[in-house]
């Protein structure tokens, strides 16, 4: 269920053998006959690369206040009386997270072994177009050759170039390794990593602030992104908008003094126990030797540039890139997995199917989950023009909110459709509990050419939040109140 293509090297150990390697626990050598060897690369620190995704996403999702905090704080309204207010035991939490991640790391290794994929724990770089240099932790070097090479080294969190950032700030990689609770925390960044972490830290009871330079969740639908931050603010997360960090300093007490500059150029500052950077990620390709072999890459991001007709293929025909290091493609685990598998099928099972990077569904696991597939409203308007776009929307109230009298102001759904004919749906956005589970099925439908007419002629499932999607009837164009009333 969880896995990720982090590094993939394929090495040819001679004229007759070929090897594959897929790091993703499920794609590892699945349908190959010729798997013999693999040479993964370990980033720094060792094995952390596999942990990165697992830790962060797993942690944010399942610790999301929607599953635990919601119950904790709403249960009183449902008739449950706890005599003591619960507090979070950070050690227990991080221990169980680490344990779970370790079990997944182990699971990967077992799967690689089962598929006869050799796992070589070393740092790799390209010496020439078919030769890979491997450097182990003990300093030993080896070289191997390969007929096909797949690069899947993933990304690392960026640090801004300000005094104290590297020394005193942590990133998402470190969050679940903190030995002490994070305390009063400043999260710098407007990415979903930033918001997800800030979201669950707030839910766990920590005083949390988010610093954003311009807009939240760049690349996502604007309206939805604003509703997300509205919800977070309503839940107690503080936002410093149009702020940039200037410096981080450690005080005698051990707390961190952060100075910043706001939108008007005014300087300000405050003290925090923890500062977490989530200002974006860079592709971990710096030491791969891409220039040596002529693999083209974007200097700004370090990402490998693929071909239009063959997205994972680099400028060197037998060298491929998948996952977070591939320029212009979504940085998502399932995308990496699928791309890796399809590539393996094309290379070794003689298929021709390519990865479709269009209409990839995703969910942001902030306390109120946001699931989306397809175009944002503004992207649709730009592509088709406002005359040819019809947006259906609804503010709904989940039944589970009524009893605890929770604020449902940001529980919102939007279907972006073409205006003519049966109104083909080009984008769907769902903000509400369980968005992750709700969105998957609609993504299948949307990719199959779902139209608005087809959707509203579907019978709803009652009572659920998901049914609100098929019940939408108010357009933005009408100007009518899109609040759902009644049951």
């Amino acid at each position: 269920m969880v896995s990720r293509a982090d590094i993939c090297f394929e090495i040819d150990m001679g004229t007759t053998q070929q090897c594959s390697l897929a790091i993703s626990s499920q794609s590892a050598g699945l349908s190959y006959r010729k798997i013999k060897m693999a040479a993964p690369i370990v980033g720094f620190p060792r094995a952390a690369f596999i942990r990165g995704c697992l830790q962060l996403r797993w942690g944010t999702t399942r610790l999301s206040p929607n599953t635990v905090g919601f119950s904790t704080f709403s249960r009183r309204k449902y008739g449950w009386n706890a005599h003591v207010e619960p507090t979070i035991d950070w050690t227990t939490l991080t221990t169980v997270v680490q344990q779970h991640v370790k079990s997944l790391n182990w699971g990967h290794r077992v799967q690689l072994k089962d598929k006869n994929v050799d796992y070589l724990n070393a740092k790799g770089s390209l010496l020439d177009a078919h030769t890979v240099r491997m450097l182990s932790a003990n300093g030993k070097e080896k070289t191997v050759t390969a007929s096909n090479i797949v690069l899947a080294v993933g990304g690392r969190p960026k640090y801004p170039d300000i005094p104290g950032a590297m020394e005193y700030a942590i990133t998402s990689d470190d969050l679940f390794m903190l030995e002490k609770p994070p305390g009063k925390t400043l999260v710098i960044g407007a990415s979903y990593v930033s918001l997800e972490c800030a979201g669950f830290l707030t839910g766990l009871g920590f005083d949390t602030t988010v610093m954003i330079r311009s807009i939240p969740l760049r690349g996502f639908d604007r309206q939805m992104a604003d509703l997300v931050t509205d919800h977070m603010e309503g839940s107690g997360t503080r936002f410093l908008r149009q702020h940039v960090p200037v410096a981080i300093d450690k005080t005698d007490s051990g707390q961190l003094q952060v100075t910043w500059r706001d939108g008007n150029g005014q300087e300000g500052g405050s003290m925090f126990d923890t500062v977490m950077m989530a200002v974006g990620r860079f592709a971990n390709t710096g030491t791969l030797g891409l220039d040596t072999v002529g693999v083209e890459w974007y200097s700004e991001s370090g990402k490998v540039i693929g071909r239009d007709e063959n997205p994972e293929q680099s400028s060197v025909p037998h060298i491929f890139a998948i996952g977070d290091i591939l320029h212009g493609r979504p940085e998502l685990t399932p995308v990496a997995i699928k791309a890796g598998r399809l590539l393996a099928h094309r290379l070794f099972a003689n298929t021709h199917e390519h990865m479709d990077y269009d209409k990839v569904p995703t969910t942001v696991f902030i306390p109120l989950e946001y699931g989306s597939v397809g175009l944002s409203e503004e992207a649709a308007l730009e592509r088709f023009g406002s005359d040819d776009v019809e947006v259906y929307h609804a503010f709904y109230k989940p039944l589970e909110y009524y009893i605890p009298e929770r604020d449902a102001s940001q529980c919102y759904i939007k279907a972006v459709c073409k205006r003519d004919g049966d109104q083909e749906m080009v984008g769907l956005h769902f903000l509400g509990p369980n968005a992750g589970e709700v969105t998957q099925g609609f993504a299948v439908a949307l990719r199959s050419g779902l139209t608005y007419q087809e959707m509203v002629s579907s019978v709803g499932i009652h009572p659920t939040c998901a049914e609100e999607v098929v019940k939408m009837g108010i357009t933005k164009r009408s100007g009518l109140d899109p609040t759902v009333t009644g049951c």
Partner: protein
Amino acid sequence: MAPIAKSFDYLVIGGGSGGLASARRAAEFGAKCAIIEKARLGGTCVNVGCVPKKVMWNTAVHAEYLQDHKDYGFDVNGTTTFSWKTIKDKRDAYIKNLNGIYKSNLDKSHVEAIVGDAKFVSERCVEVDGNKYTAEHILIATGGRPVFPNTPGYVLRTFDSMISSELTEELQHIGINLMKQTQVSKVEKAADGRLTVFTNNGEISEVDTLLWAIGRVPNIEIGLDKVGVELDARGNIKVDEYQNTSAKGIYALGDVCGKALLTPVAIAAGRKLAHRVFNSEDTKLDYSNIPTVVFSHPPIGTVGLTEEEAVTKYGKDNIRMYSARFTPMYHAVTERKTKTVMKMICLLPEEKIVGIHMMGIGCDEMLQGFSVAVKMGATKADFDSTVAIHPTSSEELVTMR
């Protein structure tokens, strides 16, 4: 006061999900409508069905999560007690609020609400407390009610056998004493008010509450003999695919017809009927591939044919099954575990999805989107070509092998 005699374009008997939806839609097309309801507006769904059920389900979900708090790192000292009164009061208040909303919706739609027990006096006329109401078009949407007779059977009899067996296992696993092949012969009340229930598998004594949930019957005691409306063998009102009964100008839908006893089905059928009768559209409800969720713990989601039905309809050689079974990530750190099971039934050669059956955390919210895809005729390849959303349980459906 002299008896009223009033005439309408559309008279709806029953103010539940189906009746309300149909009346309001017909009113939008300009029909003069009235709805007759003897009890509370909203019918079964709002008052004694879906809504209170879901509230109690959410309450029980809290009970489940309480067990997991310690595993997730919450330091919960002391004991937690439960107040039935608290949740009952809040639930009742919520439902009352909904009753009010339904009334105001009717008023806004200009549908007249008549309170009372309706009985047919002739094909165009219905009497309520001595007052007579006539209409060209009359809809019977009187719903159903629970019964008390003996009925044999096992858990979720009409569902896919995988669901039946998985749920049975889960019920037993959480400590419910499930007595199968057991029939009640007698119930006695003791002096202290508690009950003793006599069965073919022994006595169950000191019972505070005995809850029968062995089926429902349609509410048909409305003078149907006067109007020639036929019933089927089980006593449900017989209708064709357009909701016409055997009497011209009299229609029926919802639970009283005994088919797909679900609120959204009644609503959809009610609206389609209004479109057909009052807007001259040739339209009817498609009863195939209707998704359903059972709010068990964990919940069940199902759409389309069961494996048994698919084999009967298409033959074993023409179907292929895919399944998945796993412990959801939520339980990665909890002592308490539940399983998630999923089954997809595909029709060869294109592997068109003809049935999806699942039980597990999140299956209640997961099903809707997939049922839309199934209705569109999606194939396994369509599912597989959709990128997974990670980490969720729903992603298992698009990565099944």
